[in-house]
């Protein structure tokens, strides 16, 4: 079964922030995840770009403050991008 976008984002967040996957929910945010600082934020953005073959604008990078909004953004970009 193909993992959902949420599951894939969860996996990347878990790897980068060093938090077990099952503890990462849509509500997890820069506030609740200690390792999610500005350096890791850039790494997170780059990892998502590489994984889904998309690019985020600076404005979008600022919106990605929790997992739920990040997943929505990725989903929207994947729908819009020509496949």
């Amino acid at each position, binding site marked *: *079964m*193909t*993992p959902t976008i949420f*599951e*894939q984002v969860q*996996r*990347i967040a*878990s*790897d*980068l922030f*060093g938090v077990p996957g099952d503890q990462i929910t849509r509500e997890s945010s820069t506030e609740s995840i200690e390792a999610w600082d500005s*350096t890791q934020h*850039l*790494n997170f*953005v*780059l*990892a998502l*770009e*590489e*994984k889904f*073959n998309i*690019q985020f*604008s*600076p404005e979008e*990078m600022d919106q990605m403050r929790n997992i739920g909004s990040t997943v929505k953004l990725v989903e929207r970009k994947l729908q819009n991008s020509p496949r």
Partner: protein
Amino acid sequence: MSATLKARDLRKEADELIASGSADLAALRLAELWRNESGAGAAAFVVSRYEKLREKLPLARYRLAILRSFTVEPVIPLLRAAAFASGIDLTVQFGDFNAYPQEILDEESSLYRFAPDGAILATRTADLAPDVWSHYPDLAQAAVAEAVQRVSKSLEQWIKAFRKRSSAALIVHSLEQPARPSTGVLDAQSGFNESALSQSGAIQQINQELRKIVAAHRGVYLLDYDALVARHGRLRWHDERKWLTARMPIAADQLIHLSREWLRFVVPLAGKTAKVLVVDLDNTLWGGVIGEDGMAGIQIGAEYPGAAYQALQRALLDLARRGILLAICSKNNLDDALEALQNHPSMLVRPSHFAAMRINWHDKALNLREIASELNVGVDALAFLDDNPMEREQVRAALPQVNVIDLPPDPLDYAATVRDAPAFQRLVLSDEDQQRTELYAAQRERSQAQQSFQSKEDFFRYLELEVEIAPLEPATLARAAQLTQKTNQFNLTTRRRTEQQIAELAARAGSQVLTIRLRDRFGDHGLVGVAITRDDSASCEIDTFLLSCRVIGRTVETALLSHVASEAASRGRQQLAGWFLPTKKNAPARDFYAQHGFQLQSQNGEGSFWTLDLRQQTIAMPEWIRLKTNEGARV
């Protein structure tokens, strides 16, 4: 198939193995995870887990400083994960943006306090030559030439200053060309001469100057960044938006390529190269199965699909010229395989290109072990190339030290995989490297000759051994440094030294660096050993004493020691002393001092200390060895 779809959860398996204390097995899982998913997420996971295992694994340590004018932080986990998977525990430090000139020039800077083994100078053309990069059309010709001069001079100054303050290796990025020259297609129309340089011509000129500067300094290497960017596509390489917002000029999906290029320098610098490439035959060296398809049926030749295999064979021949030995390990009937290798008209590799062959039906791990012992190298000096994933897994499980190369499914990608492998990269090439295949062919003749003699001594006399011992010269420096870095077995102290460090030792008062060359009736072995000694008032201490494993056991080591002892005595030293520092690999050198009459003085956790009273004892030169000494031109 995406790795996330696999039923196996390698992350979970690795964590469970770490928890149960199985470091080796955990490392295998981590390496597999890294091969399957070479992205930022996997990199972070792999690095964090290797950090827990670092004390339990045989990892080489390497300290790398990065001097940069852009954000490199996201590349570091990719580089460290790949390094761990290559057996290197990499510690990385980087300076502030654009602070590299001060860091290089200031002896007290964090760069030098970090005491790196190597440093990378990664700058952007836009930072070094902003005028040429961003407003070239405004510049008068004289200003362009001036910019070329200015940038070349700065680079030279920094390289010189770094060399003066550190003996670490230095890797310098070349300057990249713009994706779109400011004068458009006109750029290519201007002549390439100093009085009318185009924008691309000016950058090319700086790169040529840089090449000369790098070549004039020891332990400084050029990374052709412009070629790297071109290889992966200039327009895809960059991400202008990330540059403007995060000072990160490289697109997310290209970062891996920069990390891999850096690794191609770090692996040889950390001594993690492979000395031997062992290849499978059917569906690796040619398409098809020789035992079933026969000479007429296998695929090898200038046309598709045979061309893919010819390209791989060409890549193997190129490696052989780089000093990497080739060997065969194949499940086949010996006669079928040899028939194809000897007589197939399109075959580029022939039996004489292989230093060892195991063509039989035995287990491959067993054959690899035999090949290593036949060639007198450790199993960790082997790389293994096989199209069959099952064979690869079995070898990985049985011999985790072997560098098992993952061949992609499409044979057209085989040659590139071999050419890209970090383990086959070399930063310097000696004459010995280029002739290694021939040296080993002569070796085989020698061992055949040995079998027909009654005694070892008779055999030595027959060999007509001739050694030449000389102080270090500029021409022998690179090879001497290479020997200290690569020799594992007959090496009394295993002290690794860069060219720069050896040159410093040779220039120091009271210190001697000797090299030994060996010739015999079958040919020239080239420079095969190094001895470094240091005098104090009464005693001469051996700092380094090593001999290439190819020539151990022919009393050449005794000849070198004899010379060292008689020289020390003639300089008035009363005692010759030396440490034996045991490693996992230098057992062949363990009894060397005892066998030559040295007395054990002390022993500690590091090793044992031996002395020889030069007033009472000498070490005889073996009578079958002809000694030539050469005063040479000292470095």
